[in-house]
């Protein structure tokens, strides 16, 4: 099979999907999808969040069963009932959320499910040798005896790729592989993919980053709302065209903004330190400041202390050090360390995990629209009694202003899409007119159309003379929105830059722990 793979244009396509459909309850995640992936190519699949990309690939890998449709591998129809069938057909998949057993070693994870016999010893020995070979062939070094829980995301992803290669996958599916990587790690990944392609393997790359599609793929397919809307040669298309196909209308990919006019210092952070329950330092000597009318962006790979910083400022986690709002010291560990006192001090918080910390999912949108502000007398009909009629009508107005769809305050928070849930939280926090807005991952899992809207709202708040602290793992977002950028790595600030005189490469190096030149 490998022999003719390189020249495979004349042979049958590696994968052919015919009319695949899949529904989760009322949600039709995939509708009549047909797709042809040519052997020995890198085939990109783009689409907004919830377009059904992961579902389609999980069907191909046997994780979900399609309601209808046909799968052909190498021209032959196959029944993929479970992942074992997919593996046998030569398919390997790296899921968006890794499927690794954390307390196990790399080696144990690699052999799981493909052990050679009832005893582990021979399988482990064989896998050790094979991993060494694969590492040499594909730049995939990883310590076979390390426990997964001790590895960073980049390494975990390598383990997932190794798992697939160990099973001799000819077709490798990667679902949003770069979301968790530094730019340098992502570059490394793309080199590996090129290398795999040159060995005749077929690669399906799912991403929502158009830049990666343009750089790495040969062919690209676009999905929208469960349907496959187009398949194009990458060389013949452009990011603008792809974005339009994804969303169904023209979108602004660049963020238009006027220069900032920074005013007084609103937030001052001095020597902030956090040590978690396991005794690990999560924040070490973090000092930052944010002025009125400016957006300070915090860049960094997920898990480098940004979340802890937001939690401390939001009153969700105690810390040591000093934080001042307009010169007034905040209580960082005592009784005044809670969300309510922070709101009273003029801080609004759009947390990173909106479903866990920003909303109560089964509650109505109007109920969610006042969380954190219950004690506001304007929302009470008598002391201690909520004025529900008023809250409901206010919520309706807010939802209209923030373009929440559908603008119905009686729906449960969980029945809105990710983007609209985010708008609910933003509306609640921004309409309070805070001095400082903390916002974490504002567009994670949000569709492109809504991203534009959310960005515009954050900029409007800045232009109204408010201070904004933005945490995001999306470098594009940080570069596009921020006026100043601080980079975090390992709980420390690696350096600060003006957004106007830095670029992705420099920030990427700092994110990987390289100290920036003094700003």
């Amino acid at each position: 099979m490998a022999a003719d793979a390189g020249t495979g244009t004349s042979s049958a396509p590696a994968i052919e999907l015919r009319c695949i459909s899949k529904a989760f309850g009322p949600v039709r995640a995939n509708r009549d999808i047909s797709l042809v992936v040519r052997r020995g190519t890198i085939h990109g699949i783009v689409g907004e969040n919830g377009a059904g990309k992961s579902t389609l690939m999980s069907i191909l890998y046997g994780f979900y069963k399609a309601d209808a449709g046909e799968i052909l591998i190498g021209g032959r129809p196959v029944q993929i009932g479970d992942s074992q069938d997919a593996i046998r057909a030569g398919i390997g998949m790296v899921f968006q959320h890794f499927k690794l057993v954390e307390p196990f070693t790399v080696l144990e994870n690699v052999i799981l499910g493909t052990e050679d016999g009832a005893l582990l010893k021979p399988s482990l020995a064989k896998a050790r040798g094979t991993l060494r070979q694969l590492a040499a062939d594909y730049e995939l070094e990883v310590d076979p005896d390390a426990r997964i829980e001790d590895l960073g995301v980049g390494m975990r992803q390598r383990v997932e790729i190794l798992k697939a290669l160990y099973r001799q996958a000819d077709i490798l599916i990667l679902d949003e592989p770069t979301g968790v990587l530094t730019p340098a790690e992502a570059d490394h990944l793309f080199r590996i993919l090129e290398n795999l392609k040159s060995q005749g393997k077929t690669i399906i790359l799912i991403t929502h980053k158009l830049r990666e599609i343009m750089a790495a793929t040969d062919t690209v397919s676009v999905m929208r709302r469960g349907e496959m809307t187009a398949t194009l040669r990458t060389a013949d298309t452009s990011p603008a065209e792809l974005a339009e196909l994804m969303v169904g209308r023209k979108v602004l990919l660049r963020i238009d903004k006027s220069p900032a006019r920074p005013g007084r210092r609103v937030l001052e952070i001095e020597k902030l330190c956090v040590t978690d329950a396991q005794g690990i330092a999560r924040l070490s000597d973090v000092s930052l400041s944010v002025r009125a009318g400016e957006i300070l962006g915090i860049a960094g790979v997920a898990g480098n202390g940004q979340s802890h910083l937001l939690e401390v400022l939001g009153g969700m986690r105690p810390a040591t050090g000093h934080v001042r709002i307009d010169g007034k010291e905040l209580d960082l560990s005592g009784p005044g360390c809670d969300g309510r006192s922070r709101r009273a001090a003029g801080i609004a918080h759009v947390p990173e995990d909106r479903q866990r910390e920003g909303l109560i999912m089964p509650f109505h949108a109007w109920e969610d629209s006042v969380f954190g502000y219950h004690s506001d007398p304007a929302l009470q009909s008598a002391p201690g009694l909520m004025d529900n009629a008023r809250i409901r009508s206010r919520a309706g107005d807010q939802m209209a202003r923030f373009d929440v769809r559908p603008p119905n305050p009686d729906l449960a928070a969980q029945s809105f899409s990710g983007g609209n849930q985010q708008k609910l939280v933003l509306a609640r926090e921004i309409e309070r007119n805070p001095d400082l807005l903390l916002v974490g991952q504002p567009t994670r899992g949000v569709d492109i159309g809504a991203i534009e809207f959310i960005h515009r709202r954050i900029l409007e708040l800045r232009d109204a003379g408010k201070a904004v602290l933005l945490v995001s793992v999306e470098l594009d977002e940080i570069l596009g929105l921020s006026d100043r950028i601080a980079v975090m790595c390992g709980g420390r600030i690696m350096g600060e830059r003006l957004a106007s005189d830095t670029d992705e490469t420099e920030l990427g190096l700092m994110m990987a722990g390289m100290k920036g030149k003094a700003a």
Partner: protein
Amino acid sequence: MDFPTLLQVLDSTVRLATPLLLACLAGLFSERSGIYDIGLEGKMLAAAFCSAATAAVTGSVWLGLLAGIGGSMALAGLHGLSAITFRGNQLISGVAINFLAAGLTVVLAQDWFHQGGRTPSLLGGARFEAIALPFAETLRPVPVLGPVYAELISGHTLLVYVAALLVPASWWVLYRTRFGLRLRAVGENPEAVDTAGVSVQATRYAAVAICGLLCGLAGAYLATALQAGFSRDMTAGRGYIALAALIFAKWRPWQALGATLLFGLLQAVALRYQNIELGGVGLPVQVMDALPYILTVVILAGFVGRAIPPRAGGEPYVKER
């Protein structure tokens, strides 16, 4: 305390720890696969009744043992069905099994044997006999080691030795075999097992079946070796103590041996010293009897420090919401 008394206490420690150990290992297999099992108690009780009733009727302890295992595995299957296939709440299913066993055993015992919810006393071949290990009597005169061998090591019933051997065997199965790797993996991250092409359900059913088997041994031991027949609620909370020992042992076989020996020791001490004078005040019997249970509460309340349960424990494996 003199040496012979010490030996006696330790000897009864071994006898009392055995059912705990068997139940603890049973729970270990189940919980390591991600299925919480609060129904150890019920399965043991059912096994005790089935084995005693069968042994009483047939006069064969072996048939009794088989029946005990069968009864326990039937309940294990029920738990599996509700927890694995129907993705129900594992605690509720376990509690239901405990109630079912507690009620059904007494009702059937009364209906079949008319002895106030007991089975007839088992005699002769209907009970497990003590096994004298080779040279036990010859070596007895050797100082210290002789009595230890003759009293403490020799002279237990078969199931005691089986339980002891099951400790290294469990360790070996869990950590050295393909089945063990998959079983542990499915308790930590069933999706990893699923996407590796292994059936999550089959692996969990296998674990639950082993749990049923071991609870069967534990229950049969209670009714046909430790005692001579079934009486109502004869498990007396041993299933729960085994669960506490399991947490104490952090879900590991060798530690399970240590933890159950500790609980066994407490029970042995309570049994032997029913009246203790503490500073002139006589402690009532009930205090001593309650000691193992008090320790259970203390341990469950977190005295053990950080015990990390299997990460996917207690959660049904649902792919599609």
